[in-house]
């Protein structure tokens, strides 16, 4: 409290007599700083509106049937023709495969650190995950390039591996956080009736935190769907064909935007804006979805669902009975 400006009053004069003279100035400073803060928030919102607005305005003109169903025309006489269907399919395939790799590993890591590991070990793992999360994606691209692309050539599955490395710490950390939200009473209830710890984790802790885990997963998907740098090294030299064959390089929306943004051809710019709408739309969709999932999980854990989960505990007792009996 000693830093408060009122303490600047002379020692021999009671502060109260200074207040009137200074109050005006203090109020003005206060107003000024409030105004600056409000302006900053307005600025951020304005930039967002400007950014999303120009993407939507410029990209909407690219949306037509061909945009979603056809591949790049490759026809120099008709650059506006064709679409980005091959990139949409490629992105979907690569991100789906990356999710399939990262989710089990990430969730298991979280279970190990929050259920089994000693606190010091858990702390080290957490630190490693944070460091992994902080590594620039282009460095991960170089890593996967040296590990898998050199001597083998590009392939979509390699891009998936690269993206899964980015997803892994996101999923593991968010799952760790969610697992700590599961009330101790639920765990104790299960353990108290003699359920083995691993059955307790699979039967009680995971179902109770499923919504939160899904939140982390969907945020991780949203993050990597727009990743460009790692894919540049692993799946960028692709043919203009709709394909789901992960042993070859597939075109993706981010790489397509990156390439088209540096093209001199306005029709390519239009397709890049169209692709950008798809990416932003996807990010918005997943962030809304994840908010809903998270609040639902919190409600469930706080409210009536606790009874339902306790029901599961008693249900687990059924595991003790052999069907033959």
């Amino acid at each position, binding site marked *: 409290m000693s830093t408060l400006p009122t303490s600047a009053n002379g020692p021999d004069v009671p502060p109260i007599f200074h207040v009137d003279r200074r109050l005006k100035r203090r109020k003005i400073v206060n107003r000024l700083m409030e105004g600056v803060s*409000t302006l900053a*928030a307005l600025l951020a919102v304005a930039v967002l509106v400007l950014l999303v607005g120009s993407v939507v305005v410029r990209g909407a003109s690219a949306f037509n049937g061909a945009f979603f169903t056809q591949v790049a025309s490759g026809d120099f006489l008709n650059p506006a023709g064709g679409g980005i269907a091959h990139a949409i399919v490629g992105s979907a395939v690569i991100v789906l495969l990356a999710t399939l790799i990262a989710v089990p590993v990430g969730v298991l890591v979280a279970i190990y650190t929050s259920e089994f590991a000693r606190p010091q070990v858990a702390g080290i793992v957490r630190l490693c995950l944070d460091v*992994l999360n902080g*590594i*620039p994606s*282009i460095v991960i691209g170089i890593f996967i390039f040296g590990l898998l692309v050199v001597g083998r050539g590009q392939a979509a599955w390699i891009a998936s591996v690269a993206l899964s490395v980015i997803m892994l710490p996101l999923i593991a950390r968010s799952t760790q956080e969610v697992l700590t939200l599961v009330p101790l009473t639920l765990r104790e209830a299960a353990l108290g009736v003699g359920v083995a710890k691993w059955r307790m984790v699979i039967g009680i802790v995971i179902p109770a935190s499923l919504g939160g885990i899904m939140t982390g997963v969907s945020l991780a998907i949203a993050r990597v769907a727009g990743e460009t740098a790692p894919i540049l090294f692993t799946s960028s030299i692709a043919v203009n064909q709709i394909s789901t064959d992960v042993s070859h390089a597939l075109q993706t929306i981010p790489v397509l935007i990156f390439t088209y943004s540096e093209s001199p051809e306005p029709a390519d710019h239009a397709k890049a804006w169209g692709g950008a709408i798809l990416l932003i739309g996807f990010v918005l969709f997943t962030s809304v979805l994840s908010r809903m999932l998270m609040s639902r999980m919190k409600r469930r854990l706080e409210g009536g669902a606790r009874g339902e989960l306790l029901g599961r505990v008693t249900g687990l007792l059924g595991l003790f*009975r052999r069907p033959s009996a």
Partner: protein
Amino acid sequence: MAADSTLIVLDSSQRKRSDRLGERGFLYVTLAATLVAVGVLVAIAVKVFDLAAPAISKFGVGFLWSQDWNAVTNRFGALDFIYGTAVSSLVALAIAAPISIAIALFLTELAPKWLRTPVGALVEVLSGIPSVVIGLWGILVLGPIVESQVEPFLNSFLGWIPLFSGRYSPVGLLPAILVLTIMITPIVSSISRELLSRVPKEQIEGALAIGATRWEMIRGVMLPYVGPGIIAALILGVGRAVGEAIAVTQVIGTTAGIRSSLFGPADTLASRIASQYQGAVSNLQVSSLAYLAAILLVLSLLFNLGAQLIVRRVERSRG
């Protein structure tokens, strides 16, 4: 009921065995996954330095302060890109820091309750926009504005400083700085907001009760309380800016060299890797690009550990 409990007793030895097996199996599976995760981190460091080994043995530490980047003579050095990285991220940080903290203050203290959630969500959305989209916007929308409005404006007021003189251009350091500012502001402001919301209510109310204005309370109570945390957030933000490859590649002009003006083109460590790996003609050039990646890796480790260290020290001092 009685029959059931008898069954439990009868089966208990078998159940115990299957439980023990399950317990051990489950432990090993989760442990294996953890080892994979930690192993990936180690593998990244090993592989990147392994790829960079030829360049490291050829150029040594001198690579860091050599300005060469010549594929014909096969001489490579990182100084131009270290300069580009430092200037672009530090200036972006200098712009983003006050704005982010102001946004966080607005959202925790000033905004009416009904406005906080939607504006907070909008800021979060801004942090979720993929960098390639920001880069696309940077090259096609922001770049022309910078060339025709921002740079002439800066030049007319501050043209006597070499930083703000020279030929106007839609690509260069200045658009890269603005793009990076847009990328790190939402990160820093959402962490700051989180921190500010944890300032103890008694301290806030105490300050207001003895007659402090809201700003005096913020300056005297809130900011000192969250200071270390905000510094950690700023370190994470600058780490993000340093590692950003794609959006910067799109707007910075990817040209080596150290120019006195912010209007001119430049290149960063990350954007040089992104723009050159495909056209790399010699193994030594690929290896030099990996050397740049190794520098980035070390920087990101330092930033992360530094931020963690600050957070831990604060947590320990507060008990």
